[in-house]
């Protein structure tokens, strides 16, 4: 298999110069593999198993025909199908009554067929890898820099020693710095598997050690068992270097994971920090308010998908105010309808709000059904980027930023606005505030509504990383209470510090203890901590505590 690939690479490169401009059908004398036209090869694709198909893929690549790239890409995407009617092989696109048909080689339109009229030419992961490798060889000299880059990366992944001449040729022609680096890396990876002299291998090891990522490390580890003692020794020392650097980065990675988990915890808990911390109401339905926020996101996305798909990228921004109002409104209704009658009776409040939580869950289940709802990630929330060896996913980064923004705005509302002043006044001394003309009942409702609205905002963020199902809230309620109790009741800064501490501690424990035990240990840690400091991390002092 590997030999066929190599032959194909040489042929491809050999043909790159002039022959490629002509159609291979008109120049049948170039090589034996080309005696079969592209059309004949494509027609044979549906026959046999995956190994036979891989063989044909290599033959298609070996034709050196530029149209082969499109065919192989379509095959990899699963768009090459065989018609059930006349067994001919076509390329399909969704459209019409089922699929629009095209000739795979010439691209001529061939009409359309029903969904079940065309059988897919099966492709599995192994074959997809072969196609990527074959494509890589064909696109190293492509005019499109993105193509060349991905070809170079593919070459690195395969590390096939016999592609070195091709890589050298590509290196000479390459002008883009980034692709040059990728080509050099690919060359180093290939050298390690070749039988080139030791000096070349040592140079390649240095290059890989400098790259220092997981893929490079795996090549270095493999080289450490090289029969040549010089290479093996160099590889072992390179391995030690790379692993030392990686250990450092992995600590940084753990801190980031912890901060990210902390930001999620904080988002879920900060609304509770208001209703439980500031007002002293144990609201078991808090998780369900988060869930309502997530469903609001779902509904907004559904409306956008059907009526204004070009706005999809901004769907989360539209969802924020709607989720805030929906959850906030439900929160005010809970406060006015249930909690108001139960102030000063924490146990009854707990039971009543737990009942409310069940009602909300089942209501959502009845309206939307019990299955998960798909909430899409906008492009700016998908994927990851790397700082050094720290890989940071965009969705976690944005949620982290969002959590901090929510926290800052909340502080601002409480400290700088009249309603914030009244909230603090009512919490600190209800009767005095009442005497000063503050409508305490109204302030209670607004405070609870604010906490609930923020739960709704958390729901928008969580819809990006978790299931949107009626059970969404249950997973967060206990964690949220943990954060508030640990951070110190009645203190927003406590919630911030508590969430991030718990997040980081959890993430450092997880690799050693496993996810289940890490959670248990964190819980034990909190219990012990509360024994020492019953009022949490940031205890309130003064008269407010006593009342």
């Amino acid at each position: 298999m590997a030999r066929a690939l190599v032959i194909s690479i040489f042929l491809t490169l050999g043909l790159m110069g002039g022959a490629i401009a002509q159609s291979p059908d008109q120049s049948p004398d170039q090589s034996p593999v080309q005696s079969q036209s592209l059309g004949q090869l494509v027609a044979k694709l549906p026959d046999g198993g995956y190994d036979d198909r891989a063989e044909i893929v290599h033959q298609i690549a070996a034709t050196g025909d530029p149209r082969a790239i499109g065919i192989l890409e379509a095959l990899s995407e699963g768009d090459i199908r065989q018609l059930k009617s006349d067994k001919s092989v076509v390329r399909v696109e969704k459209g019409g009554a089922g699929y629009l048909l095209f000739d795979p080689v010439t691209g001529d339109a061939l009409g359309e067929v029903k969904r079940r009229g065309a059988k897919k030419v099966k492709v599995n992961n192994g074959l997809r890898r072969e196609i990527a490798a074959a494509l890589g060889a064909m696109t190293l000299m492509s005019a499109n820099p993105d193509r060349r880059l991905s070809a170079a990366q593919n070459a690195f992944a395969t590390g096939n020693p016999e592609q070195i001449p091709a890589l050298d040729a590509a290196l000479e022609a390459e002008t883009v710095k980034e692709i040059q680096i990728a080509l050099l890396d690919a060359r180093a990876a290939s050298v390690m598997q070749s039988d080139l002299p030791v000096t070349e291998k040592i140079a390649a090891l240095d290059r890989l050690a400098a790259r220092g990522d997981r893929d490079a490390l795996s090549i270095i580890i493999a080289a450490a068992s090289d029969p040549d003692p010089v290479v093996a020794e160099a590889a072992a020392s390179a391995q030690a270097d790379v692993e030392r650097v990686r250990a450092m980065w992995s600590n940084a990675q753990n801190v980031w994971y912890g901060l990210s988990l902390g930001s999620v915890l904080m988002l879920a808990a900060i609304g509770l920090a208001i209703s439980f911390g500031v007002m002293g109401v144990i609201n078991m339905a808090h998780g369900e308010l988060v869930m309502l926020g997530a469903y609001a996101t779902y509904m907004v996305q559904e409306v956008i998908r059907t009526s204004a798909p070009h706005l999809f990228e901004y769907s989360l921004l539209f969802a924020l105010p709607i989720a805030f109002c929906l959850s906030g409104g439900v929160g005010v209704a809970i406060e006015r309808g249930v909690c108001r009658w139960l102030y000063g009776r924490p146990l009854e409040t707990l039971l009543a709000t737990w009942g409310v939580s069940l009602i909300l869950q089942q209501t959502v289940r009845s309206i939307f059904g019990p299955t998960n709802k798909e909430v899409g990630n906008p492009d700016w929330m998908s994927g990851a980027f790397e700082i050094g060896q720290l890989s940071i996913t965009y969705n976690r980064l944005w949620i982290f930023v969002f959590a901090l923004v929510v926290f800052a705005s909340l502080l601002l509302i409480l400290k700088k606005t009249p309603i914030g002043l009244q909230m603090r006044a009512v919490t600190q001394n209800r009767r005095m505030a009442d005497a000063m003309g503050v409508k305490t009942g109204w302030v209670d409702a607004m405070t609870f509504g604010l906490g609930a609205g923020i739960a709704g905002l958390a729901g928008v963020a969580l819809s990006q990383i978790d299931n949107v199902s009626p059970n969404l809230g249950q997973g967060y309620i206990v964690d949220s209470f943990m954060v508030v109790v640990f951070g110190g009741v009645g203190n927003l800064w406590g919630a911030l510090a508590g969430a991030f501490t718990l997040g980081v501690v959890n993430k450092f424990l997880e690799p050693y203890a496993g996810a289940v035990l890490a959670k248990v240990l964190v819980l034990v840690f909190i219990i012990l901590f509360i024994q020492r400091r019953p009022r949490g991390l940031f205890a309130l002092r003064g008269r407010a505590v006593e009342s």
Partner: protein
Amino acid sequence: MNKLMKSAVIGLAAAAIGTGASAEEDPIKVGILHSLSGTMAISETTLKDAMLMLIDEQNKKGGVLGRQLEPVVVDPASDWPLFAEKARELLEVEKVDVVFGNWTSVSRKSVLPVFEELNGILFYPVQYEGEESQRNVFYTGAAPNQQAIPAVDYLMAEEEVERWVLAGTDYVYPRTTNKILEAYLKSKGVAEDDIMINYTPFGHSDWQTIVSDIKTFGSAGKKTAVVSTINGDANVPFYKELGNQGISATDIPVVAFSVGEEELAGLDTAPLVGHLAAWNYFMSVDTEENEEFIEAWQAFIGSEDRVTNDPMEAHYIGFNMWVKTVEKVGTTDVDAVIDGIVGVSVPNLSGGYSAMMPNHHITKPVLVGEIQDDGQFDIVWETSGLVVGDAWSDYLPESAPLISDWRAPMSCGNFNTETGACGGLAN
């Protein structure tokens, strides 16, 4: 509040009288024991609807033995002890002739004593960990040798995987399955160091560390795959994290035993293309029977978007087996059905026939599918013939000598071939 209570009680009484009145027509009662609320509602509600559809269709064909079928639906609310109570209610109060139900293994274990004591029949439609065979239960889902082991074989042969991550949710099904898989992999010469086992709690949502660990484990220079027994809701954030951290199926494929069409419905599947699942049925199976089933289902549920999945097919097989047996023995009597059902064979949806074996498991084909961008599976491999469900795994030393045969002379679910006695393993 009091008034409300009173009216509720009156309402319930009225409902009870209502059902009492209809019992005079003497329909055959079919119990449906699936959670309609709580964490498992996501999976089990669909099965309840599937059963209602099957019963409805059978009634349109004239019922069974000339009598109409009457579904009795109860809601055990994802609460394991409540499953036992509801099962008792179905058998004692409602006097149903057969029960279709349960999803999680722990709920099945909770109802087993009830079915044994009251001599009922339970059809259990979900793939499970095996190591069980009970006279009153018919297992229409896959045993480990009908799902996990063929999937691992596929990865070894086609993807040349040498390093394995066994990731699961922390409860009985993943733990037992992983125990069997670990023993199987070792018997195939996989070293201890090349197996990583990881458990997470139900509903785990923060997968950053574990996915990054898998990435590290997979960069040791050997082809690595993840065998996932992660169950329920935790799958969505797991796959999202895989996609975000850039693990594609060509690097580290994930083969899942609990992810079907229904689970993928809540997910943007574009980054998951190529990851695998092993089942005995996929909605994408290209047969006439399946086409009809999907059409009937979507018409019954009133939505073109609803998918079908493997446990639904298991209920389809189980229900048809029961109907065929009742018609064969001419009665719904429990003992007659249990004796008569062994050997009964009905069409499955993948173009063949499934038969009930003496160990109360059925024969099924095993399919491996790759996830497509439309949330469906593309079948990339299937066993050449049907696989017989094995109640007791051959790869665990404690269960290797056990066999199960509920036919007349033996009538034993755990016969020990070494000691020659029934009751080889404390169950």
